[in-house]
């Protein structure tokens, strides 16, 4: 299963009802194309970092989807392009990156389990720093 994060920004000129409607219709599209909607995260209205068209604000929505192929995301992107109410969108496949992150985390834990004693360099560094501080007491703590 692939996991996607689809973020889209709706125009601030939409009314609350229109916003709800748009979100509803996009999630429905995703479902119809065989994707499972994991979460719909509405950030609400946010200031844009720069103007997009004439807008200075946007209504951010983050969809998290899971689907076997990219079909639902492709369809969503097509609709975003056509729709006037979507001013920006971005879809990112996240399952691979999250898996990698998980792997790193596991490796780190494995390493920690294997080597509970603090690394040797530590003591050596401390000695070095003490020696330095003794040699140049005035310059040692600049920052």
């Amino acid at each position, binding site marked *: 299963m692939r996991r996607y994060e689809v*973020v889209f*920004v709706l125009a601030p000129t939409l009314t609350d009802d229109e916003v709800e409607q748009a979100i509803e219709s996009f999630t429905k599209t995703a479902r119809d194309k065989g994707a499972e909607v994991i979460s719909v995260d509405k950030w609400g209205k946010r200031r*844009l*970092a*720069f103007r*997009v068209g004439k807008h200075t604000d*946007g209504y*951010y929505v*983050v969809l998290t989807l899971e689907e076997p192929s990219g079909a639902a995301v492709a369809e969503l992107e097509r609709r975003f392009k056509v729709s006037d109410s979507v001013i*920006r969108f*971005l879809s*990112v496949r*996240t399952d691979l*990156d*999250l898996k*990698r*992150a*998980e792997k*790193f*985390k596991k490796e*780190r834990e494995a390493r920690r389990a294997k080597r509970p004693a603090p690394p040797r360099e530590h003591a050596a560094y401390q000695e070095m720093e003490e020696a*330095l501080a003794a040699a*140049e007491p005035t*310059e*040692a*703590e*600049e*920052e």
Partner: protein
Amino acid sequence: MVRRRKFCKFCAEKIDYIDFKDTRLLGQFVPERARILPRRISGVCATHQRKLAKAIKRARHLALLPYVAD
């Protein structure tokens, strides 16, 4: 003369996945000029700098971060 030892923030805080939606985190690496902070200054390791840059660029596309200072 004694320089503070630089370290990679992401390694230190064990952040494996840099989320492009986390503006607060990304903002720390986008100073006033809105350019991505080079790792020569921030001390971020190569792996994380690469991911960080990607995340910042994604955030920019969504107007979460600026492309240029205004």
